[in-house]
């Protein structure tokens, strides 16, 4: 589509069209979904859109849904989409003719669609299947402002500081619990010729993890969530102290993070060039199954302020929601009832290495050391957060925060101007 043989009027017309990318993106409804009218009446068919697109996730979804099909006698049609394009087009997709059941994220990004009436209330499913199945915290992440549930959660991929156990044993490193120990360890690693903290944020969003964790440890989870909700100014000493602490850690990060993809940074950890990496459990995908993956271990991001502690865990929760006007409401609710069940979660998470079950009664005895450790972190968590781009307005996260965090990494000493600029844009987006 890039170049066609030019005729004089052609380029002019194309440039006009290009100039209208704004309107064009509105009109160009993505080729997602869309089914014949006759199928609307088929009571045994449920359609499902899934953004869990890597091979392990596809297999896990198929297995879990297969179990449902066998038990219920219904047919489920799974449409799998690349997760990035799914996120970029979900707005339009939900306004078109979406599938009945849609995989998505809990928290702000689910509430947003609930408020707009694009997804439907699944409180009856919770009442029927999930009394006492999830913690109150998880339940509130699946609840919109009207107090009703709009999502059934099934798994989570929490964030932590990952490292190779064998490397730590070899060099005699200890897992740090406080800021002092953490910095000390980083300095030892540098003396040993390692990059202490792998860092690759060319894609932009991975930069949010460090801000989130520092803010959670320095200002606490309550302030963090309020800040992201737009309740506080960004041009404050609190926010600047977060960037200040980050600036002190920067020398311990891999240099030139802005040109490095997150996968390349993960590879540095696999190759023992880097000692640690703040990352989500999805890092398991880059560790080859077997010896390498078993060598992977993690610890919670260390404590910076004893009064605040280190028990807030960034644990993005994934789940399933039902579209606003599903073709097959009854079947969709049944499928959700299955997907949230203990059996389905255990089956799913056993196949997908990045996912942990979120069900309270999940059997942790079969867990690997890593999964058990992460699971303990979640169970002991004082607060669960979802990651910056899931805890705030998506436009603020991607249009304002990513460029701002990248600017900070280029010029870490210019904090006053940075926070003032974020605040100006925040007011323009949040309207307060």
């Amino acid at each position, binding site marked *: 589509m890039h170049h066609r043989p030019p005729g004089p009027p052609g380029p*002019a017309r194309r*440039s*006009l069209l290009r*100039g*209208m990318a704004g309107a064009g993106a509105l009109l160009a409804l993505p080729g997602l979904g869309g089914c014949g009218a006759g199928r609307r009446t088929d009571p045994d068919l449920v359609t499902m859109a899934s953004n869990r697109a890597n091979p392990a996730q596809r297999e896990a979804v198929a297995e879990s849904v297969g179990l449902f099909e066998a038990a219920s006698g219904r047919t489920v049609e799974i449409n799998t989409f690349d997760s990035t394009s799914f996120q970029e087009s979900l707005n339009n997709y939900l306004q078109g003719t979406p599938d009945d059941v849609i995989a998505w994220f809990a928290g702000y990004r689910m509430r947003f669609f609930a408020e707009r009436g694009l997804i439907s209330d699944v409180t009856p499913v919770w009442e029927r299947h999930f009394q006492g199945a999830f913690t109150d915290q998880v339940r509130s992440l699946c609840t919109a402002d009207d107090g009703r549930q709009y999502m059934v959660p099934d798994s989570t991929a929490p964030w932590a500081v990952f490292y190779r156990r064998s490397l730590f044993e070899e060099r005699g490193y200890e897992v740090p619990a406080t800021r002092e120990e953490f910095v000390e360890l980083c300095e030892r690693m540098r003396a040993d010729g390692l990059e202490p903290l792998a860092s690759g944020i060319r894609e932009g969003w991975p930069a949010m993890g460090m801000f989130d964790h520092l803010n959670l440890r320095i200002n606490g989870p309550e302030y963090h969530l309020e800040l992201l909700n737009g309740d506080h100014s960004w041009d404050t000493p609190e926010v600047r102290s977060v960037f200040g602490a980050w600036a002190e850690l920067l020398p311990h990060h891999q240099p030139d993070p802005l*040109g*490095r993809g997150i996968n390349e940074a993960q590879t540095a950890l696999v190759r023992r060039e880097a000692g640690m990496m703040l990352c989500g459990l999805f890092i398991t995908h880059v560790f080859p199954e077997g010896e390498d993956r078993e060598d992977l271990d993690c610890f919670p991001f260390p404590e910076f302020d004893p009064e605040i502690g280190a028990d807030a865990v960034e644990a993005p929760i994934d789940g399933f929601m039902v579209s606003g006007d599903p073709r097959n409401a009854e079947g969709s609710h049944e499928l959700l009832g299955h997907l949230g069940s203990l059996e389905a979660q255990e089956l799913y998470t056993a196949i997908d290495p990045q996912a942990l079950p979120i069900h309270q009664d999940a059997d942790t005895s079969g867990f690997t050391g890593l999964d058990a450790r992460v699971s303990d972190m979640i169970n002991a968590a004082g607060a669960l957060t979802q990651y910056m781009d899931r805890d705030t307005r998506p436009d603020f996260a991607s249009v304002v925060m990513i460029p701002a965090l990248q600017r900070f990494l280029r010029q870490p000493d210019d904090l006053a101007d940075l926070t003032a600029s974020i605040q100006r844009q925040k007011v323009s987006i949040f309207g307060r």
Partner: protein
Amino acid sequence: MSNAPAPPREGRTLPRPPDRRPGRPRRPSLRNGRADRITLALMLGVPALLVVGLVWLPALATVALSFTRWDGIGGPETIEWIGAQNYVDAFTIYPPFEPALRNNLVWLVVLFAFPTVLGMLLAVLLDRRLRGGSLYQSAFYMPVVLSLALVGFIWQLVYSRDQGLLNAFLALAADAPPVDWFGDPDINLYAVLVAAGWRHTGYIMLLYLAGLKAVDPSLREAAAIDGAGPVRTFTRVVFPALLPINLVVVVVTVIDALRAFDIVWVINRGRNGLELISALVTSNVIGEASRVGFGSALAVVMLVISLVFIAVYVSTMLRGAYR
């Protein structure tokens, strides 16, 4: 009775029918008969409808939306009119906007300065029927047909800071420290322009190659007979004969520079030194909770810039047509 007066009348009107009869069947294409009018209406109307529906209406809608705050969900009643606020925001508090304008300009200048000239040079060389010419031709044109994802991947292999070909070569040849080709905002635009130019060169080469084939060989012969060398033949005879192609190349290059998008999007979504207006429009408009109003304002800025070039182009074309 009725037959009686007929002969004399026939006699009088006899010269007329031959006049009319040959005229009638011969000229219907000039007079608007029914079929002609339908044909005309279809041939003008369908393209006109397409242009209005696919170009003018969306353009006007974009302009209208640029004065609103809207997230793209729900009907027109959810649109909030906020006047020129989006434009004010873009020019005052939106940090990527100014670099984007500058980068688009750099993009334009660099595309003209290097790939366009290089493409012309390649075309002239390939036009001399070298051995294996078609092989070179397809090799140079290859980047144009490669998919976006593949182009991103290829340049990732070259430019990666830790594992890239270029840094490995520099370290080997000059023992240089690794350069952050994609991440350093002072150089990444130029690194990406090499990639963009790589594509653009092949495209321009093909345009000139087609143009050169169309140049009448007798022109060159005449020049040769008059004693002009190959360089003089090209600059004084062939190049002026390529005027229509030159015009197309100028337009294509301007438009490519204005709509440059795919490579920076693949690399880092058009941020951190790679800001381009098209990438800003896209990152504002797509996704959940999209800023349709603000993104539209950016698109209008881009439209206005395009219009300047389009106006120049159209007026040149019209002047040519009347001459």
